[in-house]
C-alpha cells in the first residue's frame, strides 16, 4: 500500500506565466474594460439628451466595438449576475431577444423607468441586441422622443453603462490583483498562478473557437441549408466587423500571455486577420453561394489555425492546457 502526504506543492510554474499574466492584464484586460466603460458611458450620456435611434446609432456602434474588445473575457466580472448575457445575448437560438423586446413594448413595462427594476428584466430584453432592435429594426426605429421605445432605449443605454462601469471597477479594483497574486488576496478565486494563467488562456482559446464556430458557423449553417440571417448583429451591419475586432482583441490577449515569444501564433493571427479584412461580405450574406461559403470556410480554418497555434505555443509556455473535463464530452 502506498501512503502519500497531502500534496500542497504547486506545479513548477513556467517562468513565462507571471510575465504573461501581468502583460495580459496591463496591456489588454484593464485598458479594454476601461474602454468599454467609457463607450457605454458615452452611449448613456447621449441617450440622456436624445434617445431617438438616429441620435444613438453612432455611440451604439462604438459601444459594440468596445464590447468586441472584452466579450471573450468570460471570467470574474463578466460572469457576475449574468452580465455577459445581459450585455450580449447571442447566439439567440430561440429568438428570445425579439420576443422579449416586443413583450416590453406591448406591455409598456414600467421597469424601463427605474434602473433597479430594469436590471431585473429578462437578460434577453437588455443589452446590445435588444437595443439593436430598437435602433435598426425598420418597424421599430422610427420612434419619437416621447415614445415608450425612446425611454426603453435610454434604459438599455443606462443599464449598459452601469454594467460597463461595474466591470471595469471590479477588474481594476481587485480581480486583476487576485490573478497576479493568487491566494494572497483573501479570495479563493484562483488558488495559484497556474489557475490564473489557465483562466486567461481558456478565454483566448474559447474566444477563437467562438469566432469560428458561432460568428462564422451559425450563418454558414450546413451546405444544404445556409443561414445568413443568423449572422451576429446583422441588423446593425456588424457581422464581419465583429469577427475582425474580436480577432484583434484576442491577438492582443495572446501577445500578452505569450509575452512576445509566440512567432507561430503571431503569424497565424496575421493570416486570419488578413483573410478577414480582405473578405468583401460584411454581412456574410454570401454564405448561401458556393464561392461565398468557401471564403467563410477558409476564414474559419485560419481562425482554427490560430487557436491550434496558441494551444501549441502559448499553453505549454504557461504550463497550462485547455479544460480537461470541459472538452471531454461524456
Amino acid at each position, binding site marked *: 500500500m502506498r501512503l502519500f502526504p*497531502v*500534496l500542497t*506543492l504547486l506545479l513548477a510554474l513556467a517562468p513565462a506565466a507571471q510575465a504573461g499574466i501581468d502583460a495580459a492584464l496591463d496591456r489588454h484586460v484593464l485598458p479594454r474594460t476601461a474602454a468599454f466603460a467609457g463607450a457605454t458611458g458615452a452611449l448613456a450620456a447621449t441617450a440622456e439628451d436624445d434617445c431617438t435611434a438616429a441620435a444613438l446609432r453612432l455611440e451604439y456602434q462604438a459601444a459594440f466595438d468596445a464590447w468586441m474588445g472584452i466579450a471573450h473575457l468570460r471570467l470574474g466580472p463578466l460572469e457576475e449576475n*449574468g452580465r455577459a*448575457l445581459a450585455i450580449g445575448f447571442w447566439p439567440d437560438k430561440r429568438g428570445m431577444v425579439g420576443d422579449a423586446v416586443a413583450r416590453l413594448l406591448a406591455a409598456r413595462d414600467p421597469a424601463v423607468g427605474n434602473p433597479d427594476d430594469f436590471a431585473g428584466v429578462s437578460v434577453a430584453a437588455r443589452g446590445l441586441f435588444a437595443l439593436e432592435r430598437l435602433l435598426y429594426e425598420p418597424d421599430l426605429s422610427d420612434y419619437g422622443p416621447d415614445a415608450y421605445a425612446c425611454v426603453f432605449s435610454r434604459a438599455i443605454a443606462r443599464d449598459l453603462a452601469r454594467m460597463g462601469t461595474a466591470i471595469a471597477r471590479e477588474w481594476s479594483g481587485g480581480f486583476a490583483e487576485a490573478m497576479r497574486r493568487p491566494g494572497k488576496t483573501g479570495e*479563493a478565486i484562483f488558488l495559484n498562478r497556474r489557475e490564473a494563467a489557465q483562466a486567461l488562456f481558456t478565454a483566448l482559446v474559447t474566444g477563437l473557437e467562438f469566432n469560428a464556430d458561432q460568428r462564422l458557423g451559425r450563418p454558414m449553417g450546413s451546405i444544404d441549408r445556409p443561414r445568413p440571417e443568423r449572422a451576429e448583429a446583422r441588423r446593425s451591419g456588424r457581422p464581419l466587423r465583429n469577427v475582425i475586432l474580436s480577432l484583434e482583441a484576442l491577438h492582443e490577449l495572446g501577445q500578452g500571455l505569450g509575452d512576445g515569444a509566440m512567432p507561430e501564433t503571431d503569424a497565424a493571427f496575421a493570416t486570419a486577420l488578413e483573410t478577414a479584412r480582405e473578405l468583401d461580405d460584411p454581412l456574410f450574406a454570401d454564405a448561401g453561394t458556393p464561392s461565398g461559403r468557401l471564403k467563410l470556410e477558409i476564414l474559419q480554418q485560419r481562425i482554427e489555425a490560430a487557436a491550434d497555434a496558441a494551444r501549441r505555443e502559448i499553453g505549454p509556455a504557461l504550463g497550462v492546457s485547455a479544460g480537461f473535463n470541459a472538452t*471531454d464530452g461524456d
Partner: protein
Amino acid sequence: MTTRRAFLASLAASAVWPSASWAEAGSPAFLAAAREADGGYALFGLSERGADIFRIPLPDRGHAAAAHPSHPEAVAFARRPGNFALVIDCLRGRVAHRLTAPRGRHFYGHGVFIEGGALLVTTENEIETGRGLIGLWSRAEGYARVGEIASGGIGPHDLLALPGDLLAVANGGIRTHPDSGREKLNIDTMRPNLSYLTVSGGIAERVELAPDMRHASIRHLAAQDDLVAFAMQLQEPLAGVAVPLLGLHRRGAAPVLCQAGLADQLAMEGYAGSVAIEGGRVGITSPRGGRLQLFDLDGAHRQSFRRMDICGLATGPRGLVATDGLGGVLEVGERTLHPVTTAPRAWDNHLVRVPAI
C-alpha cells in the same frame, strides 16, 4: 442469460475470497482518477477532506470507477467506447483483473456492484443492434462474465444500485459505433429514458420525458432515499437553449425538471457532467460553463457557484465535495465553494464515494 443460481453460487464463493477491507487501504472516502503532471494517469483514494491516501497508476484515461462495498477493490472503466475495465486491488496497488467486453459489446463508462458486492454490473452497447445492455460479472469467479440483460434503451451510461438491488439506468438514447468513435448516429430519432430494473425481473419502470425534451440525453444519476436525480446533456437542436439539465424522479410519479434563471441556465452550456444529492440539496456540475448549481429537493434553484473545469461531485461524510480539472478538491458549503486541497493534476469527470463500512 444468467440465472438466480449463478448469483447464489457467487455469493457463496465470495466467502472464500480474502477478506481485506477498505480500512486496510487507509479508509478512503472517495476514489477519483486523474491525469498527472507528467501526462500519465492514476487512480487516487482520497480522505474525506480530499487528502491523498493511495495512488495507483492507470494505463490510460478512465471515465468512472466503481467501488466494492466492502473490499478494497475498484473497477476503473475506460472512456467510452472502451472495451476494457480494470479491477484494481487498492491494498496492493495493482491490477487484479482485466475485464474485456465480450465480442460485439463495448463498455459505456460506468458500473456498480450489487448483491452485496458479489456481482458487478456494467453499462454496455450491443454494437450490431445498438441495444443497451447491462453486463453481469461474478466477483467470486474472478470477475467472469456470467450474463447480460437489456438496459431498457439505447446508450446506457451511468447506473445506480438502489435498495433491493433495483438498478436505475440512464439510457442516454444516443447510439454510437466503435468504428466511428463517439459520433452520434441517431440524433434525429433519439429517445432517452431512465429505467428501473432488476437482474431477475427485467424492466420495472421506464421514464421518458416529453417529446420536446428528447434531445436531452439522460447521462448521470444520484439517489437519496426514494429520490433519483438525473443529469442531462443537450444535443442539437436543444444545445444552446435554456432547457433543464436536472430531473428528479420518484417511482411511479412524473419527473420534475429543474431549471435556474436564464443566465445561470445558459452558463451551463447544455452540459451537466455529474450529479449528487446531499440532505436537502441536489447539485449538478458543468465543466464547460465552470458552474456548480444547487437545487432544493422540490426542484427550486438555490444558488450557483463558479469554478473552472469543475466536474466531479459526490456526497461524502462531511457533505458535498467537488473536483476540477485544475487539481482542486472543494467542499460545497452553504454559501461558499471552499477549496480544501490542490495538487498538480487534472481530476477526471467523476468523484466516486467509497461506501462507509
